[in-house]
């Protein structure tokens, strides 16, 4: 793609999300979502094969439906309250429709079916933008309407997302699909605590984005999109292999690493609000997530995965230079001792 056009379109994706996050008029928020959707389609279609076109079409159809539902909820809100300002949505019908629309945009169950298919059909860099930047705009709107969200619907969607994200990822060997199911599960964790303490949602979003960014950068560095391809990194860059181990365990939420911080805070906040069964179920279902991360680390860093002898040397062009990889890795694994600093977020 022409570099000037590519820069313009990428900046429009950023502008769309910025408009969503800083507007006070519901119509401008809808315009921001549409601008975001329109501009990310050519980024998803960077390579012109039928697979990327199919993935972009699926993404466009689901997100356009979600935008239509969002507009319907905005109009119903206007009809009953007579104003366009962003506050909590007072009408319960409008609130439910808006929650469903934003859940479709995020990829929560039962609207999660597009996430693995779209992520698998596009290149690693596009998948990175899809799974990190595109989650910011809907989550910011959920944060702003959080006092009025119907608790039953949101918690059902959250718990089912954690279940589907864990269970669905078990049979996958393609790395992009694994990251997609991981995204579904993390979105479930984020929305589960939204009604109780929205600050923790933002904390979880921040740490999730850092960890997913790190994982994708490590995959891009070793140019691997399957488990088999990833298992050959021990031969080329053993340091990357170790870092894959640490980052994957952090994504699974294991204690001395920073991925544990959001899960710990969320479980604490849920138990403070006298729900015991829910966080127990969520923690147990996070084990499913941990299982397939562990399988990746086992095949990559801990053992020499079986392959024929002529495949043991990993062949690729010159090493890609990934900006910001060391700081990202440090941040996605060593942030846990900073947990007392969360008290400044009030």
């Amino acid at each position, binding site marked *: 793609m022409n570099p000037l056009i590519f820069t*313009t*379109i990428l900046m429009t994706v950023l502008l769309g999300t910025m*408009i969503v996050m800083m507007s006070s008029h519901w119509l*401008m928020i809808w315009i921001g979502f*549409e601008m975001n959707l*329109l501009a990310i389609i050519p980024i998803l*279609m960077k390579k*012109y094969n039928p697979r990327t076109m199919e993935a972009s079409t699926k993404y466009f159809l689901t997100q356009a439906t979600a935008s239509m539902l969002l507009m319907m909820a905005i109009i119903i809100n206007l009809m009953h309250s*007579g104003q366009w300002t962003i506050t909590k949505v007072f009408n319960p019908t409008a609130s439910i429709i808006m929650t469903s629309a934003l859940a479709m945009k995020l990829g929560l169950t039962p609207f999660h079916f597009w996430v693995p298919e779209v992520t698998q059909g596009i290149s690693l860099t596009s998948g990175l933008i899809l799974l990190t930047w595109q989650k910011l705009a809907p989550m910011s709107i959920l944060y702003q309407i959080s006092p009025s969200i119907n608790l039953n619907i949101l918690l059902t969607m959250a718990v089912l997302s954690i279940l589907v994200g864990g269970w669905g990822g078990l049979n996958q060997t393609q790395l992009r699909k694994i990251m997609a199911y991981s995204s579904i599960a993390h979105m479930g964790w984020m929305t589960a605590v939204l009604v109780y303490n929205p600050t923790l949602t933002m904390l979880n979003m921040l740490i999730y984005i850092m960890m997913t960014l790190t994982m994708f950068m490590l995959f891009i560095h070793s140019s691997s999109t399957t488990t088999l391809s990833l298992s050959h990194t021990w031969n080329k860059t053993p340091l990357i292999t170790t870092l894959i181990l640490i980052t994957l365990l952090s994504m699974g939420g294991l204690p001395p690493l920073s991925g544990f911080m959001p899960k710990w805070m969320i479980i604490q906040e849920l138990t403070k609000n006298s729900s015991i069964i829910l966080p127990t179920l969520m923690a147990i279902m996070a084990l499913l997530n941990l299982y397939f991360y562990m399988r990746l680390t086992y095949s990559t860093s801990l053992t020499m995965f079986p392959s024929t002898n002529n495949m043991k040397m990993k062949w690729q062009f010159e090493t890609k230079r990934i900006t910001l990889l060391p700081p990202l890795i440090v941040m996605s694994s060593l942030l846990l001792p900073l947990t007392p600093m969360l008290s400044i977020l009030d």
Partner: protein
Amino acid sequence: MMTYIVFILSVIFVVSFVGFSSKPSPIYGGLVLIVSGGVGCGIIMNFGGSFLGLMVFLIYLGGMLVVFGYTTAMATEQYPEVWVSNTTVMGVFLLGLLMEVMLVLYVLKSEEVGVVFKFSGVGDWAIYDTGDSGVFSEEIMGVAALYSYGVWVVIVTGWSLLVGVLVILEVTRGD
């Protein structure tokens, strides 16, 4: 009938939308767009917005739809699809008609025609008479306010349209 004129016009509006979203060939989609544009203009005029109705006819139908018609005429196929030629298209059209008929019956039966077109706090466009510089209509003032208080909206929509063109060119360019 005049008390229900907005209701009748909005029913025709929805039926023509069903007509083109059941996806016949684009030429026939443009045909029902003309009908829906005219009817939409009628709805706006009933609220007192003569300027915006004129804009619909001039700019939308007379500018954008004409260009659309020319480009579709260049790219059309030998036997374009009508609503009755393809079973799927006819089925979707009939389904949409059925939904609309059920909605109309529900609205008429529950005597709540007002719910279709009255939002709370919004009425007709008011007409002010200040005495010194003549009669102001609220809706023209709204259009003027778009370019003074609403500069950001103009910038955002203008940029969206520009990026829309760039995106479409990029997507259809291929390799």
